């Protein structure tokens, strides 16, 4: 028997639009064109919303959760007749998973790269040479210290 947390859905409402999940009537309009549902084992936005509504979604914030399979294509957002926005529920669950230390290593690594450098790609000599070949000025320095202050 999973642990039931009746207030779980309230913890999602801080993410924009995720709080509208109570309007879901489980019609599956979000599933029909969901690419992750078609291609990834175990991903189903209708089930993700239902588990969140019932307060049994803790497992979705565990390590290796299916939530990271979402492609963020926003087709569920467009197709939902109830304005539920399953993708925002997924984002809210991702935020909870990260806070629990359960985000995939590469997601954390991208965030760390932005925190240290202000950008997701670190400049290199090879890149500088390519920019020069194309007649482009050197890439400007990113405001790394300011971004670090935001992410600390």
């Amino acid at each position, binding site marked *: 028997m999973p642990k039931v947390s009746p207030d779980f859905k309230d913890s999602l409402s*801080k*993410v*924009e639009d995720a709080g509208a999940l109570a309007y879901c009537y489980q019609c599956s309009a979000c599933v029909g064109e969901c*690419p*992750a549902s078609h*291609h*990834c084992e175990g991903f189903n936005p209708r089930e993700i919303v239902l588990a969140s509504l019932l307060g049994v979604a803790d497992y979705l914030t565990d390590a290796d959760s299916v939530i*990271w*399979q*979402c*492609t*963020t*294509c*926003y*087709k569920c*957002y*467009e197709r939902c007749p109830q304005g539920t926005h399953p993708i925002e529920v997924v*984002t*809210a669950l*991702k*935020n909870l998973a*990260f*806070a629990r230390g359960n*985000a*995939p290593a*590469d*997601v*954390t690594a*991208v*965030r760390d790269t*932005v925190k240290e450098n*202000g*950008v*997701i*790609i*670190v*400049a290199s000599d090879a*890149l500088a040479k*390519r*920019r020069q*070949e*194309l*007649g*482009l000025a050197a*890439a*400007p320095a*990113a*405001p*790394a210290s*300011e*971004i670090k*202050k*935001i*992410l600390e």
Partner: protein
Amino acid sequence: MAKSAVAEYTLFLGCMIPLRYPQIEAAARKALPKVGVKVVDVEGFSCCPEPWSVKGAGLDDWLAIAMRNLAVGEKSGRDMLVLCNGCYATLTEAAHIASNGSDARAAADKKLARLKLSYAGKSRARHVAAVLSEAGAGKVAASVSRPLAGLKVAVHHGCHLLRPAEIMGFDDPFEPSRLEELVEALGAEVVRYQGYTDCCGKATHDSTAALTMASDKVEAMRAAGADCLVTVCPACFEQFDLGQVEIKRKLGKDLRLPTFHYLQLLALAQGEDASSLGLKRHHIDVAPALAKIKA
């Protein structure tokens, strides 16, 4: 404000274009002035930040960094021009959230105050596809000196240009056509294919599924007779260009459909030489597509 023949924007390049695909930046700087779009560089921008990992880790932090970029853009007194769907999605959604005065905005405001910055909601991000579309296909066509006649192009819009339509405001989320009109303005022929608004698959964490999604799309483009595909996003570009190398290695399919950013096709049609555009850096050889263009 009087409508001037030259529109000025602050250029927001993000990360992938200047730091991994500078050939797209080079194409933009050559092509845009010829259609009356002047770009101005300003200092101080960071990653937009990218809307999968950074947003997945924490919406508050993602919003604060995005609002910081919007604040820097706002100081320049111009709207920001972006060449990437990811930057467009982040900056547009962040401006939308900021205008709603939500809890998330209040948290982001506090972080910005520590940097002595604030975002008043005056500047916004404009996608280059929207700016060109609003300028008009006729204006784009007027800049063409070497039409891409004979070239059949499959258009991949990319999800974050289209959806959510009520926030992105570019085109119909399931039956878009404005980007296709911009391709036709270059003298090329657009081919519609099955699933043309589907996702490239870049952002899923399931690497096999990601390649299958891209592979399905490229196969549908091939089946419709496309000689190449065009995107307006460096992440989608990478998923198809580098992705087709991975598709061959892991799925055993040798698809080789040349991949372009729209600005590269625009620069080519304006008479820029392929060698000055860095096209040889693409993983999938573009020569078969260029050979289709009738001299």
